[in-house]
């Protein structure tokens, strides 16, 4: 199963750096890797959420080049947070998951913004918080709403 999850994450990263460029809205593109990670962590819990968050972030770091650990750390946090929701919320409601995705993307974006400060990269709050984090999170939430039903159906077939 681990190989399958890893394969899906590699494929998602691959799509992220190629095809998703053409679906930019208001200058931002959805984060397919993060969305799939949140889905999986939400269904599997904190332990797997953190682990796969780290792996997904690390794959992105390889794809981005430079700053190894930047995505790994904030995706680890996002995976953990999504895993925390496992026991407290309904798993089959796409609206719940879309809201969680939006909130976790906001949180992950804030961590990323702070880590950029730590690395000495300043992006103005209007652009960083307003355009990239907020617009990106809303877009991710909307994509999660569209994808979750399919993901949940596939997941329940694998883990009946």
């Amino acid at each position, binding site marked *: 199963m681990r190989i399958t999850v890893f394969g899906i994450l590699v494929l998602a990263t691959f799509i992220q750096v190629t095809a998703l460029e053409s679906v930019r809205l208001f200058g*931002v593109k959805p*984060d397919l890797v993060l969305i799939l990670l949140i889905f999986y962590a939400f269904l599997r819990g904190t332990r797997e959420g953190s682990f796969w968050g780290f792996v997904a972030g690390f794959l992105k770091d390889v794809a981005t080049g430079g700053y190894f650990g930047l995505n790994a750390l904030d995706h680890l946090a996002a995976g953990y947070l999504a895993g925390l929701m496992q026991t407290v919320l309904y798993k089959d409601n796409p609206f719940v998951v879309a809201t969680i995705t939006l909130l976790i993307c906001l949180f992950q974006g804030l961590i990323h913004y702070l880590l950029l400060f730590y690395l000495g990269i300043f992006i103005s709050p209007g652009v960083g918080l307003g355009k990239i984090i907020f617009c990106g999170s809303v877009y991710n939430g909307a994509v999660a709403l569209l994808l979750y039903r399919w993901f949940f159906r596939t997941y329940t077939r694998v883990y009946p």
Partner: protein
Amino acid sequence: MPRSRRSGKRVFFFIIFMLAFLLLMKSTDLKKIGMSPLEGALRDVFAPLQKFSVTATRWLEGKLSLPIALINATRQNKQLTREVAELKGRLVELEECRLENERLKKLLDFQTRLPGDFKGTSAAVIGRDPGNWFQTITLNKGFRQGVQVNMTVLVPEGLVGRVVKVSANTAQVMLITDPRSAISSLVQETRSPGIVEGTSDTSGRLRMIHIPYDIFVRRGQTVVTSGLGSLFPKGVAVGQIMDAKKDPTGLFYNATVQPFVDFNRLEEVFIITELAGELPEKTGDRESGS
């Protein structure tokens, strides 16, 4: 083992893990190291797949947008015919200016570098940065094809960026819109110097800072690279000034610059491998614009 002791141990390991990664992150800053062998190998393995995926996406986009394209085609055709006629006229004027410029330069024995002095190679864009924070692209040519770090990347419209990492068959280019990019530039009409920075703004605009206060900066002026202490050659078009304001100190102007290049639609680019007989510097430092 008691539960509290076990969770204390976990917290301890978590803190160590976090610190280790924060240090790793700093140590992998673009200006400090090149590409690791693992990273280089992964990029080379994925390069053909990335190329295929980008081509497939473009094909799909083309198919989906065909009906809309047909509706717009007639209108665009009329407009383009008119534009072609206009541009032909302007081309004659520009040719006249170029010849005049060459004569004046010979007279002044003034050495400048023109685009004709550039030697380079074209490359296809095969990948993009996965996130929204940084603006980088991956090209399908690497050191085997003569590409080196810090080489300038252009398209006919203007400056694209510079090569920051190279593997055997791929190169990573930091676009001028990346927040880590800074280019020493000039306002073409007034020769006012300044530094053009990337902002990560989703609108794709740039910011030109430190423009001297004594010469008025206005909308529509063109920004070009200055070539001063820079990795970029002189006179490459960067963008057009959209608006300008005094900075908080009142000593300089800050301007918003719209780049000439549409970075969302980059497909092919040109890498300058040689400039008037010399190669660009091979340092890994960040462009400072000084």
